[in-house]
C-alpha cells in the first residue's frame, strides 16, 4: 500500500514537472477583455462591426467603418475577488484599482474622387491595457499528507552536499548556485531537509526534516501587480464601401511583480532531534519586457444588414527579463527547545533575457444590423495555447518546457456575443463571453463566463458610455512547481465598471 502511494506520488510529480513557468507563459498568452465601455458592454463582439476603437484589437479593418474622426478615453475600476478552498478551509481576498485602461484616436480620410472605388482611408492609434495583473490571493488550510519539504527534496536530490554546505558570509554562497541548487541550499540551511550522509561532500541524497505525522497547516499568499499594455498603429481602407481591410502593428510592454509567501506549521510529536515545526518561504518575481505583434483583418458588408469579419492575430513576440529573490525562515524544535534558521541570502537573481511567443489567433465574426435601431453580433476566436514557445528554443530547459506546454495546454475557443438597441440618443447594450480553458485538464485554469451590460448616450459632438462586466473563472494552480504541487481551488470573480468619453469631429 505504501509503495502504491509512492508510485502515485512519483507519477504526480513527474506530470507536473517544469510547470513553474507555464503559468507565466499562459499569463501572457491569455488576454483579458478590456477596452471601451461600448466594446465591453457588448462582450467584445465587434469583429464584424468595427467602428469602435477597441474593435480594432479584434479586427483591424474596423477603423475604416468610422465615419468621423474620433478620440476616446476609457476609465475603469477593476475589482477581483478570490475565494479559496484548500482542503475544506475557505478564505477570501480581494483587490481593487482604478486605471485609464484605453485611449486612442482614429482619423478618417474620405476620398473625394467619386469615381474611385477606394472610398475611405483611415488610420488609428490606440493604447489599451489588455491585461490588468493586479491581484491578491490568499489560501489556507490543513494538508493531511504533504509538506513543502517535498519541494526542497525534489530539487535537492542530485545536488552534491559539497556544493551547498557553506553558509559563511551570510549565505552568500547562494548567489553562486544555479536555480536547482539554490532550492537545495535554502532547504538545507533551513534544516528542512537533511543529507542522508552529512559527512560525505559527494552525498546527493536528502530526506525530510519536517516533523512527521501529517496535518500540516499551510498558508499561501500571492500578491501581484502589473499591466500588459498594447499600443496599436492601425491603417485600414474601404473598397466600394463593401469590403474593408486593415492592418495593425502593435507594440507591447509589460511589467509584472509577484510576491508569494508560503507558511507551514505542524504540532506533531517532537523527539530528541530537532525537526522543523514551522517555516515561511518567500518568493519574489519581477518580469518586464516588450513585445511586437501584427494583426490583419477584413470586414464585408454582404448585404445592408449582414456583416462578416475575419481576422488573424500574429503571435506576440515578447522579450522578457526576470528578477527573482527568495528567502526562507524555519523553526526547528525538539522536546527541550527550538531554534530558528533565517536563510536570507539578500540576492536578486537575474537571468539571461528570453523570448516568449504566444499562439496565433483566428477570429471569425458575424453581425446583423436592424436598420438604425439595433444589432446583434457574434465572434468566435481560436487559439492553440500548445504553440506557446519559450526561446531560445534549444535551451535545454526551454526545450523541455515547450514540450511540456504542448502536452498540457490545448487549443481553445472563445465565443463573444453582443447586442445593442437604440432609442433615439440612448443605446442599451448587453453581452456574453465564454472563454475555454487553456489547459487540457480544464482545472488549472477553468472556463470563463462573463456577462456584461451597458448604457450609452449620444450628445452629438461627444458620447458617454458606461459598462458593467462580471466574469467568473475557477482555477487550481499548484503552490509550487514541483515536488509539492498541492494547490487551492480558487474562484475568481471580476467586477468592472468602465466609463468611456468619446469625441467626434
Amino acid at each position: 500500500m505504501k509503495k502504491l502511494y509512492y508510485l502515485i506520488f512519483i507519477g504526480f510529480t513527474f506530470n507536473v514537472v517544469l510547470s513553474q513557468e507555464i503559468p507565466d507563459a499562459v499569463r501572457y498568452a491569455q488576454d483579458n477583455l478590456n477596452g471601451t465601455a461600448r466594446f465591453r458592454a457588448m462582450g467584445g463582439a465587434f469583429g464584424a462591426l468595427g467602428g469602435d476603437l477597441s474593435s480594432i484589437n479584434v479586427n483591424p479593418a474596423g477603423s475604416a467603418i468610422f465615419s468621423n474622426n474620433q478620440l476616446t478615453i476609457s476609465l475603469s475600476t477593476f475589482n477581483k475577488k478570490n475565494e479559496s478552498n484548500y482542503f475544506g478551509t475557505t478564505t477570501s481576498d480581494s483587490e481593487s484599482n482604478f486605471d485609464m485602461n484605453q485611449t486612442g484616436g482614429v482619423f478618417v480620410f474620405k476620398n473625394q474622387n467619386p469615381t474611385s472605388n477606394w472610398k475611405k482611408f483611415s488610420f488609428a492609434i490606440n493604447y489599451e491595457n489588455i491585461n490588468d495583473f493586479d491581484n491578491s490571493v490568499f489560501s489556507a488550510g490543513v494538508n493531511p499528507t504533504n509538506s513543502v519539504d517535498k519541494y526542497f527534496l525534489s530539487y535537492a536530490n542530485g545536488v552534491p552536499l559539497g556544493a551547498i554546505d557553506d553558509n559563511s558570509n551570510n549565505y552568500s554562497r547562494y548567489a553562486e548556485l544555479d536555480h536547482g541548487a539554490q532550492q537545495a541550499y535554502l532547504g538545507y540551511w533551513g534544516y528542512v531537509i537533511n543529507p542522508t550522509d552529512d559527512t560525505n561532500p559527494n552525498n546527493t541524497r536528502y530526506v525530510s526534516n519536517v516533523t512527521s505525522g501529517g496535518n500540516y497547516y499551510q498558508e499561501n499568499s500571492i500578491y501581484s501587480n502589473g499591466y500588459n499594455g498594447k499600443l496599436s498603429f492601425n491603417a485600414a481602407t474601404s473598397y466600394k464601401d463593401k469590403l474593408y481591410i486593415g492592418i495593425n502593428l502593435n507594440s507591447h510592454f509589460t511589467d509584472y511583480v509577484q510576491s508569494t509567501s508560503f507558511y507551514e506549521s505542524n504540532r506533531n510529536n517532537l523527539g530528541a532531534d530537532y525537526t522543523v515545526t514551522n517555516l515561511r518561504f518567500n518568493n519574489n518575481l519581477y518580469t518586464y519586457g516588450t513585445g511586437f505583434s501584427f494583426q490583419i483583418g477584413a470586414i464585408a458588408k454582404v448585404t445592408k444588414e449582414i456583416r462578416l469579419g475575419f481576422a488573424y492575430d500574429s503571435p506576440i513576440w515578447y522579450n522578457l527579463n526576470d528578477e527573482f529573490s527568495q528567502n526562507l525562515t524555519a523553526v526547528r524544535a525538539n522536546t527541550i527547545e527550538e531554534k530558528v534558521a533565517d536563510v536570507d541570502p539578500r540576492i536578486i537573481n537575474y537571468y539571461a533575457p528570453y523570448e516568449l511567443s504566444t499562439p496565433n489567433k483566428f477570429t471569425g465574426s458575424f453581425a446583423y444590423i436592424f436598420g438604425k435601431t439595433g444589432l446583434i453580433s457574434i465572434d468566435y476566436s481560436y487559439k492553440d495555447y500548445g504553440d506557446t514557445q519559450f526561446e531560445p528554443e534549444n535551451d535545454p530547459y526551454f526545450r523541455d518546457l515547450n514540450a511540456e506546454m504542448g502536452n498540457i495546454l490545448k487549443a481553445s475557443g472563445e465565443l463573444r456575443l453582443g447586442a445593442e438597441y437604440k432609442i433615439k440618443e440612448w443605446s442599451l447594450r448587453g453581452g456574453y463571453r465564454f472563454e475555454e480553458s487553456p489547459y487540457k485538464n480544464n482545472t488549472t485554469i477553468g472556463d470563463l463566463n462573463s456577462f456584461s451590460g451597458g448604457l450609452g448616450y449620444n450628445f452629438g459632438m461627444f458620447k458617454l458610455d458606461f459598462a458593467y462586466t462580471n466574469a467568473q473563472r475557477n482555477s487550481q494552480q499548484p503552490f509550487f512547481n514541483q515536488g509539492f504541487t498541492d494547490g487551492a481551488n480558487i474562484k475568481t470573480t471580476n467586477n468592472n465598471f468602465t466609463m468611456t468619453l468619446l469625441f467626434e469631429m
Partner: protein
Amino acid sequence: MCNNKNPLDMKTNILLSKNVTLYSLIGFLSVLVTSCGSYQNSSYYDSDGIYGNTAREPQSVSSTQYKNYFSSLQDEIKVSNDTIIIPNQGYTETNVVNVYNDPWNMSFGIGFGYGWGYPYYGYGWGYPYYGYGWGYPYYGYGWGYPGYGWGYPAYGYGYNNNYSYNSSRRGSSYAYGVNGNRYSQNQSYTDRTSNYNNTSTRRSATSSATRNNSSFMTRDYSQNNTTRTRTNTNANSARSQNYSNTRTYTPSSNNNYNSGSTRSSSGGSYGGGRSSGGGGGRR
C-alpha cells in the same frame, strides 16, 4: 558589482517608457485632432459608422450653395454685361479651388463659419495634455528621480539586496541539461528514509542557529480564529498603494486538525515561542 546598476536602469526605463508613451500619445492625438480635425464634416448626430450614415454631406451642400451663388452672380454679370466683371471673377476663382481639386483634399468644403467655432473645442483638449511644456510638470525630470525611491520598495527587494547573474533558468533543476533528467532520480529518495542516520550532527543540538526569535511567523488561525489582520512586521514590505487590499478570513471547521494534535506532552516551552507571532509579514 559593476553589474548591479544595470537591472535598475532597465526597469526604470521600462516604467519611464510606458508613461512617456502614454502621455506623448495623448499629446500627439490632441495635436492631431486639434490641427487636422477640420477636414471632416460636422454630421455629428448621425455618425455611427456601424449603422451607416444617411447620405448627407453638408460641406458639399454649402459649396454648391456658394457655387450657385457665385455662378448666379456671374450669370447676372453676363446678362448685364457690366464692368463689374473683374472683381466677381476673383470670387469665382477662389470658390473653384475648393471643389474636386484633389481627391484626398483634407480641407475640402469647410465653410467659413466652421473655422471660428472650432477653437472652443480644440483648445479645451489640446492644451492641458499637449506637448512638453505641459508634459513635464506631470512627468518630467523633476519627478522622474523620486521614482527610484518609490519604485523599489514596491518590489519588495529593498536596497540591501545585491543583484547576481544566474546562468541557469528560473524554475530549472540542478545542473539542468548537464545532469540529464533528474527526475528519474526522484524515485529513490522516498525509499531511502530508512538509511537515515539518526545520529546526524545536523539534527543534534550542535547546529548553528543564527536567530532566536520567531516574529516572522503568523499565528495559527486555529488558535485565534477571529479575523485575521495582515499587519506587516517587516519594514520593507511596502507595496505601491494604488489599490486597496481587503482580506476577510473565514475559518471553517477543521476539527480533525485540532483534535489530531497530540503535542501536549512536550509543548510547554514550545507553545510560548509560537505565540510570539505578529502576523503575516510579507517580504
